[in-house]
């Protein structure tokens, strides 16, 4: 089944099992009886990509069509890349082993900015020109989706089409269109023009961008009748939405290998730093019946012994009790665990809790994000010290001896008191442990404090904010270390260089395409992996194109500035974001969506509906 050149590669690499395909439930079709071949590419390792829910859904969705065969492709690790280049093996679909260069459609999912060089590398390994403009034939068409597409400008040159928003419906529409044009013998230009007329489709080559003397964007101008604003796709009804009956079962170990389904899309919280909290709005809930059925299907078809319920904030699901009651009715007998991340389980009736005893207790984690109430108010992270400490107390009384706390440094309006507040809060958690008269004898407490650096992102109220410079962030990290006086607290801080690059790419404009290409040429791959990250290469690449990381990462934007992503419509309005940003400056909170609709604007893409508002409090 595998060709000899590929076999030779596999015999010289670590973990060959991730390059072979053939897993249970992977889909193999007869090449001659289909009309479109689709390569779904995840620009990171097999282990990460195979853990991703979105990929599972879209893979099954495309394969549910009789006329389409969709295959999976992941980024080969360095040793495999070397072998492939040495032996002339082109990037192939895992199911067929055929080069994806000959496919009709190549789709990337862009989940984080630090995977951009992998996308370029995969196109190159496929034997394709990197730039859309140089791929002149109709096929393969290169498309990309995922959260990064809310500002796709830095990678605009490499994909032919971007699909902002939910991919479930637009994928089918686009496949239909491509099949029709392929069979008609259209040119690529004809197809792209037709595609640009579909709502939820962004064809970057149909827009011209001009710049001001200071390097900011002057205007984004659509050519011809391309829409001035591109609306993201929104799936209205999650119960009616396609969901797979089976997942591919990875044969080698991956990060998450379990039955997973989404319980709702969007988030009611509105934390001002969190991009996901805004770009997935409005809120759409899935019914407990649907979730239960989907979990059952997946467990049956994969033999999985763990269920994971996915959402941005599980405790905000309005029908959690009903859902868990349904699930435990069968999971108990089947020896299936239910993983409940970040759920306040103390709100449920005792009988249910007892049945849930099979639930694997993941470690106790809190994400206060900021060290003082003042800063938590400014970022709208509506959790109080009292709540955290009382939950910690209950947990300690229940026998827990370790807690994880997540914070961010460099948040807008942060002062030295806020930095010191992180250490103080961690200390209070330690004190809470020792205040417990029934604490286990001879056992200490561990409070792990994990600190990342704030990265301002598009479509958040902080999209205009400067990121702290490396020096500022490192100064704050040192300050924080000096405030910690006990070994009970273990502090770990993320690398600042990675966050800096992330900030530059997240709010970048079209000029970064050349930078990304140069960085890739210098050898950048897997930038999200600390051991492979080479910031030096990136700095050189920016410099060679007369640009600076600081311009993108550390510069404060004016509210009136044209932002590179202003032509994207994610529902959430600019007025709302400006209002939220002002409130942040005044340390003023916004209640969550079930208390009061903050009129973010996202409902207008969903026919004026939003489950947070219409269904209200239960």
């Amino acid at each position, binding site marked *: 089944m*595998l060709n000899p050149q590929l076999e030779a590669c*596999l015999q010289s690499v670590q973990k060959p099992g991730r390059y072979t395909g053939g897993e*249970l439930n992977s889909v193999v079709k007869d090449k001659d009886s289909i009309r479109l071949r689709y390569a779904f590419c995840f620009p990171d390792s097999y282990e990460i990509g195979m853990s991703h829910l979105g990929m599972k859904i879209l893979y099954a969705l495309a394969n549910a069509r009789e006329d389409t065969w969709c295959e999976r492709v992941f980024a080969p690790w360095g040793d495999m890349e070397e072998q492939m280049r040495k032996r002339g093996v082109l990037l192939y679909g895992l199911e067929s082993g055929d080069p994806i260069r000959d496919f009709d459609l190549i789709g990337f999912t862009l989940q984080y900015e630090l995977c951009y060089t992998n996308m370029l590398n995969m196109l190159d390994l496929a034997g394709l020109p990197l730039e859309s403009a140089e791929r002149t034939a109709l096929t393969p068409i290169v498309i990309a989706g995922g959260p990064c597409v809310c500002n796709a400008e830095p990678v605009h040159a490499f994909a032919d089409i971007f699909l902002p928003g939910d991919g479930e419906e637009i994928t089918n529409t686009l496949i239909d269109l491509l099949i029709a044009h392929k069979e008609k013998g259209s040119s690529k230009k004809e197809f792209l023009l037709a595609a640009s007329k579909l709502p939820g489709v962004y064809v970057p080559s149909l827009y011209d961008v001009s710049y001001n003397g200071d390097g900011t964007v002057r205007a984004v101008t659509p050519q011809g009748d391309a829409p001035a604003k591109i609306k993201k796709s929104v799936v209205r009804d999650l119960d009616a939405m396609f969901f797979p009956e089976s997942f591919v079962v990875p044969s080698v*170990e991956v990060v998450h290998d379990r039955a997973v389904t989404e319980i709702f899309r969007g988030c009611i919280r509105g934390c001002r730093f969190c991009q996901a909290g805004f770009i997935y709005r409005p809120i759409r809930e899935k019914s407990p019946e649907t979730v239960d059925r989907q979990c059952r299907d997946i467990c049956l078809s994969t*033999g999985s012994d763990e269920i994971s319920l996915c959402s941005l904030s599980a405790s905000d699901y309005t029908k959690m009790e009903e859902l868990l009651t349904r699930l435990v009715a069968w999971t108990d007998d089947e020896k299936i665990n239910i993983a409940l991340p970040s759920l306040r389980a103390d709100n449920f009736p005792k009988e249910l809790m007892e049945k849930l005893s099979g639930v694997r207790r993941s470690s106790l984690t809190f994400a206060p994000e900021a060290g003082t109430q003042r800063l938590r108010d400014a970022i709208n992270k509506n959790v109080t010290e009292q709540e955290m400490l009382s939950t910690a107390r209950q947990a300690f009384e229940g026998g827990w001896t370790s807690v994880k706390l997540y914070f961010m440094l460099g948040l807008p309006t942060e002062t030295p008191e806020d930095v010191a507040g992180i250490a103080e809060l961690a200390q209070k958690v330690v004190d809470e442990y020792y205040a417990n008269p029934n604490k286990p004898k001879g056992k200490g407490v561990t409070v792990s404090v994990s600190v990342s650096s704030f990265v301002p992102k598009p479509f958040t109220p902080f999209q205009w904010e400067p990121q702290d410079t490396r020096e500022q962030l490192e100064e704050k990290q040192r300050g924080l270390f000096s405030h910690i006086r006990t070994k009970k607290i273990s502090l770990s801080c993320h690398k600042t260089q990675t966050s800096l690059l992330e900030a530059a790419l997240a709010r970048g404009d079209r000029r970064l395409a050349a930078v990304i290409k140069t960085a890739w040429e210098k050898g950048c791959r897997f930038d999200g992996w600390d051991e492979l990250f080479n910031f030096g290469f990136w700095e050189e690449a920016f410099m060679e194109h007369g640009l600076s990381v600081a311009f993108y990462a550390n510069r404060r934007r004016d509210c009136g500035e044209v932002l590179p992503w202003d032509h994207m419509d994610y529902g959430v309005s600019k007025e709302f974001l400006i209002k939220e940003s002002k409130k942040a400056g005044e340390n003023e909170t916004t209640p969550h969506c079930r208390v009061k609709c903050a009129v973010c604007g996202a409902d207008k893409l969903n026919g004026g509906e939003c489950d947070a508002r219409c269904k209200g409090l239960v």
Partner: protein
Amino acid sequence: MRAVRVWFKKEGRAKYLSHLDMNRCFTRAVRRARLPLWYTEGFNPHPYLNFLAPLPLGQESAAEPLDMKIEGEITGAEIEKRLSAVLPEGIEVTAAADPADEALSIAMAEYGVSLLFGEGRTAAAFAEKSGELIKSGLLTAEKTGKKGRHKVQKQINICEHIFRYEISASGTVCSLKATLPCGSQSNLNPSLMISALKRETGLAEELITIRRIRLLKEDFSEFR
């Protein structure tokens, strides 16, 4: 509760699965096949699966034994049918029956190795030189062994461990058949022998296939 010995083939893409991967695949497969298995007690119950002769990554096998514990009524044929349907490509269950031999009686394994060379001359040279090396009675290799709880490197003479062998070349392919110790008492991975031959002959293949053909007991009769 009764023991069942499942025999399966591991070939093609599946040969790149490690022993740990195999464990994972079968754990999922028995659940998916809804076999009435006996589960261990405790907080995290799991089925009892015992691979009697774990196969190194990269090697094929015509017949691998796996012992399970069954707790319900089910025929061997039914187990075979249900399991085969839910395993990754390249793993195929060929039989499921009561174990005939004690697991510990595995003593040797017969391997078939085929090496593909760039040209016919090299294949012939490799076959000839390898034959001479084995006949000479001395072919050393480094082997990782255990001394108490520590890993140690030790020198072994591979020739002392070869029970039977046959080597020939045809076209660009060199074929080697060897019976080597296998099991918990003494074990020799055929790839160790091949790398020693490659080192001594100074020749390297383009592609290699190592296939375990069958397991043998001490008296050279087949393990069942």
